[in-house]
């Protein structure tokens, strides 16, 4: 009997079911709307708001410290860029991680994916937002650094030194976007904030040490680590121009450390149960 379809009929067969007014099938949800909603969700909690605010706050503090503590006569734009860049390289990947994991940690994924069943579109919107936030944050941070540079020259009375060419700036943005992507990928992979954050720091802080230790004892690794270790080439982006081989290494290691976990994580998100 359990297999029988149970379709309870109205009792007297003529139950007055007033037909609900004629309804038009609603329009599909446009991607831009999902983008807007996901962006809003990154700012509308205290934690989210202060994480975003910390971009500006950290830049201001780093700049102020540079002016106060640095040797003002030697300060150039490059010094400021470096000092605002270091907090960015920590905050931005965290934004990438939390953009994904908060849905699972706070269990909002239940509502999110019920309202937008196409999980790929939601993740896609998050990814676009994260990358845009990354670029905007870098511009903001560099802007704060530029103000610091102007301030310093006003204090010392010398001309400000603008020694960051556009290509270096582009490389710094790229390096930070890669960091964010790595965070985002780990977020997808773990779907758990602490695990993904720890994972990020293991990849970023522990692995370079291990790689260095390995390189000091293993000659082959010293020569070839660039083909496997994302950090080695990614860190080069911050202050040097890359050779062709280094660009290829960057591409390959990005495939290994970013695209692969991103693909696996996406696959897991697409077919896993949302609890």
């Amino acid at each position, binding site marked *: *009997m*359990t*297999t*029988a*379809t*149970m*379709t*309870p*009929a*109205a*009792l007297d067969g003529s*139950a007055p*079911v*007033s*037909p*609900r007014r004629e*309804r038009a*099938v*609603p*329009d*599909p*949800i446009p991607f831009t*709307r*999902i983008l*807007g*909603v996901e962006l*809003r*969700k990154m700012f*509308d*909690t*205290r*934690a*989210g708001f202060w994480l975003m605010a910390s971009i500006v706050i950290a830049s201001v503090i780093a700049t102020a410290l540079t002016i106060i503590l640095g040797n003002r006569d030697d300060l150039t734009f490059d010094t400021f860029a470096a000092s605002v860049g270091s907090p960015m390289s920590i905050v931005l990947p965290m934004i990438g991680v939390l953009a994904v994991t*908060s849905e699972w940690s*706070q*269990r*909002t994924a*239940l*509502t999110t*994916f*019920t*309202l*937008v*069943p*196409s999980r790929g579109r939601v993740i896609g919107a998050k990814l676009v937002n994260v990358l845009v936030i990354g670029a905007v944050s870098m511009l903001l941070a560099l802007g704060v650094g530029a103000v610091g540079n102007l301030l310093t020259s006003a204090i010392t009375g010398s001309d400000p030194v603008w020694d960051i060419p556009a290509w270096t700036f582009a490389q710094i943005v790229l390096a930070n976007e890669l960091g964010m992507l790595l965070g985002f990928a780990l977020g997808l992979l773990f779907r758990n904030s602490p695990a993904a954050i720890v994972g990020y720091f293991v990849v970023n802080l522990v692995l370079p040490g291990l790689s260095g230790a390995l390189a000091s004892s293993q000659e082959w690794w010293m020569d070839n680590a660039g083909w496997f270790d994302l950090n080695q080439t990614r860190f080069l982006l911050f202050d040097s121009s890359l050779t062709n081989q280094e660009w290829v290494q960057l591409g390959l290691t990005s495939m290994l450390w970013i695209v692969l976990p991103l693909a696996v994580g996406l696959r897991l998100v697409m*077919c896993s*149960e*949302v609890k």
Partner: protein
Amino acid sequence: MITIESLTKRYGTFSAVDNVSFSAQPGRVTGFLGPNGAGKTTTMRVMVGLTEATSGHVHVLGRPFGALPNPGREVGVLLDASAQHAGRTGREILTIAARTMGLPKQRVEQMLDRVSLTEEESGRRVRNYSLGMRQRLGIATALLGDPEVLILDEPANGLDPAGIRWMRDLLRDFADQGGTVLLSSHLLHEIEVIADDIIVIGNGRIVAGGTKQELLASTGTLARAAEPVVLSRALEAAGIVTTVADGAVFADADLATVGRTAFAAGIPLTELRTADGAGLEEMFLELTAESQRDSLTVLEGAVA
């Protein structure tokens, strides 16, 4: 309208949902009744695409949930009122949902009003909400898009008696306007007072289904007299099938017929009531009794 056909969800060798088929009709409130862990939630999660079915399928308004262009406008869902970001305000949660569905801002105010969340409460963070308030917020989210179908998992949880009354009226109203309501509960009474149709699930399988009247109708009459055998004979003589057990006579007829027959035969009755042998409650109690779990096959035979 919700149609579920041969739905099965297995986790390894464990079948959480086992070949479940039923439908929820427009204009009616369908109660999905079963003890905890019977498979109600899993079935509902598959319905809205959060869990993938092992086999079988579910259609909501004629298509799989994932194929609905803007699901919130057609199907209101409340699976877990606590699954909200604790740091968002109630109003913000509704605003996000309204934006996703493409609804005007006023809709949020209307819904807050509809579920009786005050201005002050809507500005509070959900972390500080009672379960009842979360439940109201969840119902507001479900109703936000003016849907045709409501899928609610244990919506009465955490509501006070007045809240339960309020929700009952709300769902009744929704169904009376032609909407489809599917709500689950592990409390028989709750379903009894609200549902038109009842589906009973136990250990992942459907064990009974039908209109409330059908399922709650008693299976016969229990009568006692000083001499049960004499009473039994008198009833049999009137063409009523009877069985005698424990000094009582079980008759396959309604109360009035049994009473009249006994009176006509001049037999003074000491007790006359509806037999609760295989009634819904009995069946449900058996389902909920942990010790009865493994004898479910026997029970299913009895129901069939």
